[in-house]
């Protein structure tokens, strides 16, 4: 038997990875054995690799539940159906519209929940900008919906038996509730409002990339027409 050729440490380390997995062929194994016999660093590296590998061999890998696979396919089917209709993914307003379409009492619940949260958090000042109210530029515009937003939202709704007046009031309350909730959460968490809005996947009306390009350009608060808040 001839003596194995000199092996670099870099090659030896690659062989060690295969060796501990039982994938190293015989000639390379001979070379590796010769190398580690004379190289204490690689000998130690091989020993470490073997021992860690052996210790973790009993760890059972979790298996993804089958119902998750079904959920993935259902989500992709829904995505495909959406694309087939030529529509983009629903905007936040469309999602709110879909949510509102189910029952007229929902906005009331949201409003109540938002107000309850504000009270529980001790924030009674209700600094959230409301539609139509004067508010500073910047963060205060985040999550605020103006009258055009309401119109856009209503345009996406299938009103069915719900009267337009009732639907408009419900939409206004939902938007107001969202604004209050967002501001309350912001204050409670001490996070930037833009971060909060982004984490909620709610488009922020501040120009390019807002996700609300289909809507009219953001209005300066002073340009906003007061909403007729009924009920």
């Amino acid at each position, binding site marked *: 038997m001839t003596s194995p050729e000199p092996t670099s440490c870099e090659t030896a380390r690659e062989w060690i990875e295969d060796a501990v997995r039982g994938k190293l062929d015989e000639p390379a194994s001979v070379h590796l054995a010769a190398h580690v016999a004379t190289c204490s660093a690689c000998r130690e590296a091989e*020993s470490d690799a073997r021992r860690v590998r052996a210790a973790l061999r009993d760890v059972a890998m*979790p298996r993804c539940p089958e119902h998750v696979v079904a959920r993935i396919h259902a989500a992709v089917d829904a995505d495909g159906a959406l694309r087939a209709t030529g529509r983009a993914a629903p905007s936040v307003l469309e999602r709110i519209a879909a949510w509102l379409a189910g029952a007229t009492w929902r906005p009331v619940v949201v409003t109540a929940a938002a107000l309850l949260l504000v009270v529980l958090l001790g924030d009674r000042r209700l600094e959230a900008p409301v539609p139509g109210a004067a508010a500073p530029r910047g963060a205060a515009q985040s999550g605020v919906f103006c009258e055009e937003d309401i119109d856009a939202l209503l345009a996406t709704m299938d009103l069915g038996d719900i009267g337009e007046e009732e639907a408009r009031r419900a939409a206004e309350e939902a938007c107001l509730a969202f604004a209050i909730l967002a501001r309350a959460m912001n204050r409670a968490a001490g996070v930037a409002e833009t971060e909060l809005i982004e984490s909620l996947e709610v488009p922020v009306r501040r120009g390019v990339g807002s996700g609300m390009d289909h809507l009219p350009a953001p209005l300066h608060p002073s340009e906003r027409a007061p909403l007729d808040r009924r009920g």
Partner: protein
Amino acid sequence: MTRASFAEAIEKHKDAVYGYALHILGNTEDAEDIVQNVFVSLWQKGGGLDPEGWRPWLLRVCRNACFDVLRRKKVRNWSAAASRVADKRAWGLAAVRGAADDPDLLELEATDAGRGAEHVEASAAASEALAAIRTLNEPARSVIVLRELFDLSYDEIAQTLEISLSSVKVTLHRARKRVRDALGEEMTT
């Protein structure tokens, strides 16, 4: 990408994505949501990805999505807390030391009541090794987990964690040494 190839991708990589999400989050419900979102992202990306690169791409998206979840939950010490729950609840380890004293763990446990019990128990040596891995910082922790538990190649690890190949090698070497030191000399093989 055809539905057939997409289904093949799911079948081939779903366990890895789920396991990695579970490893980071320690919560089966969140992990399931992550898996769904990751694969939907793959579908939406369409044919712009080489099948050879699916696994690191999926795991990278998974990792980023998991961090988003943790940020929303305001879990700062995720590296220790999430994995302890994952190890105990989902990865099937019976003994988890120091869990009761960790407020982050308690927070996570409150969101993960009793899930993951179907997984088999790991050995004492594995428990020791995982305990040692839990003490590692990122990216060492992910490097050794992806290598030893998920069997990713150096290249795949580098792509997943978006670090260099040399960093993977050096980090893995150091991580193994730390784990071996923790295991001691009496470990049975």
